[in-house]
């Protein structure tokens, strides 16, 4: 054997090993056990703990499930949570931190509408994908919609439409409305009036009250509504305002012989604090967590209970579904380039807890729906009865109307 011969053999062996090893090297750089996919989640954890603690629990549950099943395309999902304290300017700063320092691949979150809008504008300016989970304002996908923002939860329009449909079945003609004095409350009343009047042209709104958010003077507000003597009431107040409104309303007999149609009241976050004073026979949107027996929901409920030793709230479902949507999109896209992810989100269909949901390409709004039913007291606790699932897709305006409402082309 000459030295050259040995060298050639060794060279050949080395090349052979190299070609065998190369996939391993390439694999280690970007594949299994490789770089995790980082999601930056900004939310008002300190100012809205009642909704957002269950939300984060649902989020973490979904993330753990995804990672236990091997991650997305072999990559783990990782979320970095930040608290914006309810201030839009802080949310923008934290989004900047997540994007530049923590190098997240996409942004998510938002609870208050103004925070959601600030994050959406940031995402648009910096060309990052933003999956808004909770902010309800229609402007997020319509008047101020942009190509980089998508929203999961049914908007103010959609939920008002669900209730207007139920309200049209009632015989009442004289309506009163009470809503918190900010954009969400005002929009909800505006849409409800428009849609109800379209369905029943002879209704009239005899009184409207707009208590400051979180500071309702319940006695005076209830009295002012009663003075107008409506036949039915549309209520948009929630959380502490709702509780105070209900208590004063009952003591003064506001709800006797009157129909009440109420947004969000059927959600456990807002129904549970009322305890045994929960109103009965109100038509509400909500989430009857103990009664929905579809396969996907039962699986979710059991997993949530096992993980957190508590029952799920609507916030939990929103958090879980946001992660599920992001995971589904990442599987479809296969990478983490923003433009590819944005394209992947448009028209994305995935299996949410309540059923299949689609992110419409037209306006980036998801078709997640809500449960519509009546409230009832059972075992000293409020819950829903005679409920049905209202698919969000059925409660959106026709496409031409949407195109007019959303100036930016989809």
């Amino acid at each position, binding site marked *: 054997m000459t030295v050259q011969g040995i060298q050639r053999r060794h060279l050949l062996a080395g090349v052979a090993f190299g070609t065998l090893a190369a996939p391993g090297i390439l694999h280690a750089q970007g594949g299994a056990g490789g770089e995790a996919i980082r999601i930056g989640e900004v939310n008002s954890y*300190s100012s809205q703990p009642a909704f957002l603690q269950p939300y984060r629990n649902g989020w973490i549950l979904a993330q753990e499930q995804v990672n236990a099943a091997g991650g997305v395309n072999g990559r783990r999902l990782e979320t970095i949570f930040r608290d914006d304290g309810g201030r839009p300017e802080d949310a923008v700063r*934290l989004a*900047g931190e997540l994007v530049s320092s923590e190098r997240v691949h996409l942004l998510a979150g938002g609870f208050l509408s103004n925070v959601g809008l600030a994050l959406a504008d940031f995402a648009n300016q910096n060309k990052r994908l933003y999956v808004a989970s909770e902010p309800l*304002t229609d402007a997020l996908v319509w008047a101020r919609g942009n190509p980089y923002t998508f929203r999961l939860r049914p908007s103010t329009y959609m939920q008002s439409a669900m209730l207007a449909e139920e309200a049209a079945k009632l015989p009442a003609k004289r309506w009163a409305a009470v809503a918190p004095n900010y954009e969400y409350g005002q929009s909800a009343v505006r849409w409800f009036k428009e849609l109800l009047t379209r369905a029943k042209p002879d209704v009239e709104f005899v009184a409207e009250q*707009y208590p400051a958010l979180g500071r309702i003077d319940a006695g*005076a507000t209830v009295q002012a509504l009663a003075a107008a003597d409506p036949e039915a009431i549309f209520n948009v107040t929630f959380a502490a305002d709702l509780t105070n409104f209900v208590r004063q309303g009952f003591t*003064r*007999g506001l709800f006797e012989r009157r129909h009440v149609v109420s947004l969000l009241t059927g959600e456990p976050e807002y129904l549970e604090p009322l305890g045994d004073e929960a109103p009965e026979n109100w038509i509400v949107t909500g989430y009857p967590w103990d009664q929905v027996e579809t396969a996907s929901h039962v699986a979710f409920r059991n997993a949530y209970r096992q993980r957190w030793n508590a029952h799920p709230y609507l916030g939990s479902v929103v958090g879980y579904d946001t992660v599920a949507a992001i995971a589904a999109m990442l599987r479809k896209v296969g990478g983490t380039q923003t433009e590819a992810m944005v394209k992947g989100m448009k028209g994305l269909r995935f299996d949410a807890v309540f059923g299949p949901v689609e992110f419409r390409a037209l306006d980036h709004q998801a078709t997640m729906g809500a449960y519509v039913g009546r409230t009832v007291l059972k075992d000293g606790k409020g819950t829903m009865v005679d409920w049905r699932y209202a698919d969000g897709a059925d409660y959106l305006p026709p496409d031409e109307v949407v195109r007019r409402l959303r100036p930016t082309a989809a």
Partner: protein
Amino acid sequence: MLENLLLQALSGLASASSLFLVASGLTVIFGVSRIVNFAHGSLYMLGAYLAFTLVTFLPRGHLGFWGGILGAALLVGLIGVLVEVLLLRRIYRAPELFQLLATFGVVLIVQDLALLTWGPQDLLGPRAPGLRGSVAIAGLRFPLYELFLILVGPLVLGLLLLLFHRTRWGTLVRAATQDREMVGALGVNQRVLFTSVFFLGACLAGLAGALQLPRESVNLHMDLAVISEVFVVVVVGGLGSLGGAFLAALLIGELHAFGILVFPRITLVLVFLVMAVVLVLRPHGLLGSPHEPARAATAVTEPPTRPAPGPLRLLGLAALAAAVLLPPFAGDYTLTVLTDIAIAILFAASLHLIMGPGGMASFGHAAYFGFGAYAAALLTKWLAAPMAVGLLLAPFAAGLFGLIFGWFCVRLSGVYAAMLTLAFAQIAWSVAFQWVEVTGGDNGILGVWPSTWAAEKLIYYYLALTACFGATLLLRRIIHAPFGYALRAQRDSPLRAEAIGMDGFRIRWLAFALAALMAGVAGGFFAYAKGSVFPTFLSIPRSVDALLMVLLGGVRTLSGPILGALAYTGLQEQLVRVTDLWRLVLGCAIVVLVLFFPQGLAGAARDSWERRHEPTGT
């Protein structure tokens, strides 16, 4: 029709009664100790939470319920004593309003502790036994408990008046309100007196919170929801006047009850409109006395303002060099934070101009910050103006409003002036919030981004640094100019200043407008830094931030606002990313800083410097 109006009036009376109950405690505390107790709302919230716990655990029935309410009031009284003894007592000699900083730390701590103890959910307490139902008045139903509250208000007023006018303790307290030093000279133990006053005030706050249990849910936002209304009631009534507080509560309760019949959307701003009108017409509130104690409560006189000593100048130059030379190596996020700090420094310095040398506190300074930001945003949105135009014109908008509002505010003095600035700020906020067609309402104005030449974070940072730091130096130069001397003269001795021909009103007015102008500069830069403008830029929390930065740094030094802005912004920014309980940690940090540096950070530094360089033997 008439029955409805009658019932509306009764509802107004019930709210007035609850308002008075909370405000009475603050009136008592403020009247004697002149402490602006920001934590009063927290005591109210604790009263409600403790009442809920006690009432739930004690057996049902009259004893359990009323015992729980009284027990909660007493417990809150004890907590108030604890706060006073551990914290406030040590800072009585600090410059005025410094206790505000300490009580703000307490607010933050209580918020997180309440969340940890009682959880995030709202709690609905039981109704009062024997007062569950309603009574028929003029054919309509009115809750019994509201009637009970309507009676409790005047009852408490009567008892307090009896206490203050017929007992020895009350006489001592009234004497201490008029002249604290004399009372001490006459041999009364001031410490015990103050602590007992605080106990009473805290008890009243706790009682007010506990009495809300059958009416409202107990939640974590109660403290901030009630505190601004309580301050308004106390100021409108006249500081330290119980009768005035009662009248003010009555006025506000009834106006609110009838106001929502006519303008349902007035709920946001009614209270502040009333305060603005009352203070403009009656500068000392409804029943306040115009003779405030001539001597300030502090025993330490402020050293004369001198140009910075050598080492301080070197330190400043070094900091400036670092601010200019290091950022190119920093990441995008660090640059954002540095830009925010530069803007905060200017904002704090502008407030310091009127608070320190000017001697006028302002609780509504964020209004001018917000005016600047909105001016820039409106120009961008409606006129498609480039960034340079927005930045140039924003300060003038803010300065204009400073001139207009300032004319009203500088006619008043002390806390009244500060509260009038707050009233104007809230009115401005509610206009921004509700005038949806122009300002976008609470959804704000989006798309206010810098022009392409300044879109890079580094370039924008240098721009902001130049403008903000330059403006801060300009303010410092103004303080050393004759105008600054005149400003300080009218603060230290208005009589002498008038005697030598200085028009105190005009000087204060100009200083206020100048401060507003500078705040507008900061606001304009902030708008383009964040890309969107919301009514939160004008809101009370932002004004409170400015106050905290100035107080933390030390009102009596010129470098105070710079140091305070750096410390506060830096601390908050770091803590938010590190822990969920950042409010608790921030509150504790503030309390610790307050205890160890009662002159503020820069003040403490100056004191230790002067101590080391004092000529020996003096």
